[in-house]
């Protein structure tokens, strides 16, 4: 187990170091999220719909789009010089490779979300202070959900033509349960509703995370091993 984690962290660490060197994917994702927020702002009529009603949906669509942009890089870096083969040659369990990539992706998407959230508060003038711990919690839950599926899909599509198009096409149906849950919980948190109203959704999110991370670990070898 310790060996497994050591390898996963080594792979995640390498990915993070690589991204810090080139920074391209991260910056694109951050800029993209900011643009989405700006578009949403101009797309709505402030007199017709209160910001706080629209806020959860806007926030989560932004997070979702940003995540899809950030996810594409995960296996793209392994294409140069057949670096992935270098990892597969080594005595590394395929599940450790998956978890390493998952951790790196969570870090990247986390950074994008960390930048998008304050921008969101700024642009939409929504006060989230009272609900912040809850929002951070549900963000973590939902993000693990769609990044886990996104990681395995990005491993597949990187070898196809139209990779940037294939990833959203495959991933979007899988993003719906975590997104719906996240929007519902965020909306209730902002409205100060009691926890009992959110329990069902939180259970859904947790079950989704456990289910899909496990499933992805199980099927990942079929994706990378010939």
């Amino acid at each position, binding site marked *: 187990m310790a060996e497994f984690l050591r390898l996963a962290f080594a792979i995640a660490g390498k990915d993070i170091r690589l991204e810090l060197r080139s920074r391209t994917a991260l910056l694109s994702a951050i800029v993209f999220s900011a643009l989405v927020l700006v578009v949403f702002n101009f797309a709505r009529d402030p007199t017709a719909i209160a910001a706080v009603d629209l806020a959860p949906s806007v926030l989560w669509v932004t997070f979702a789009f940003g995540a899809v942009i950030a996810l594409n890089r995960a296996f793209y870096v392994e294409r140069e010089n057949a670096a992935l083969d270098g990892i597969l040659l080594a005595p590394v369990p395929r599940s450790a490779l998956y978890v390493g990539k998952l951790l790196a992706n969570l870090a990247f998407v986390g950074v994008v979300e960390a930048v998008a959230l304050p921008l969101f508060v700024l642009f939409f003038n929504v006060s989230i202070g009272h609900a912040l711990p809850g929002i951070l919690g549900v963000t973590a839950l939902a993000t693990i959900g769609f990044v886990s*599926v996104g990681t*395995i899909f990005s491993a*597949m*599509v990187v*070898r*196809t*033509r*139209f990779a940037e198009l*294939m990833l959203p*096409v*495959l991933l*979007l*149906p*899988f993003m*719906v*349960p975590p997104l*719906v*849950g996240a929007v*519902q919980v965020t909306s209730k948190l902002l409205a100060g509703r009691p926890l009992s109203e959110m329990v*069902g*959704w939180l259970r*859904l999110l947790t*079950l*989704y995370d456990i*289910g*899909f991370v496990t*499933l*992805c670990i199980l*099927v990942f070898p*079929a*994706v990378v091993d*010939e």
Partner: protein
Amino acid sequence: MTPELLAASRIVRRGQVLTILGLLAATAVYVIALCYTPMEMRQGLAQKIFYVHAPAAWGALVAFAVVGIVSILYLWLHDERLDLFAASSAEVGIAFSLVMLTTGPIWGKTVWGTWWTWDARLTLTLFLFFLFIGYLALRAAVQDRGERARFSAVVGIMGLVLVPFIHLSVYLFRTLHPQPVLLKPSAPSMPPEMLRALLSGMAAFTILYIGFVVLRYGLARLENLREGAGDAL
């Protein structure tokens, strides 16, 4: 004729027979549906579209389950034929879901004035449709046959696991956002003639599904042989 060619041709023939049987059965069901079932009070003739709509949804669901289960078998046994079978089921499934997704709005607009509702069945079938599209698009985008089979199997299995979560999401959504109760003809309070017609429709579509899939599978086997011959040259 090589043995594989013979086997594949035999499968195609069987598929053709089953398809014709299915089409005949379906026609019989519609004659019954149009002439022998009672007219629904509030909806009138438009309600009869239900006898296409519901079996099509059933067919799509069966097709999807088959894709998922055969995908698991493929990852376990690595038999290329399993992959071809799953792909055939996906193609038939997408056709059935399209039928369901077009008859749904036609029915909805005619009877209730809305093109679309987010009720459980329509929503689920819409998701199946998107999953089928993703599955088939991925297959089209991958050149290497082994890779294509492996990737499709992974997507098939993941899609299968997704379905209960979609169901749960819709259920939670609806209990929190009660929607106007729509007339559901599939409720047990259906007169026996309707129920009989519905069940016959399901049976006919099941035969049709099997026929289409076997036919498509046989054709896929033939295609595979042709590609293989091309590779070996």
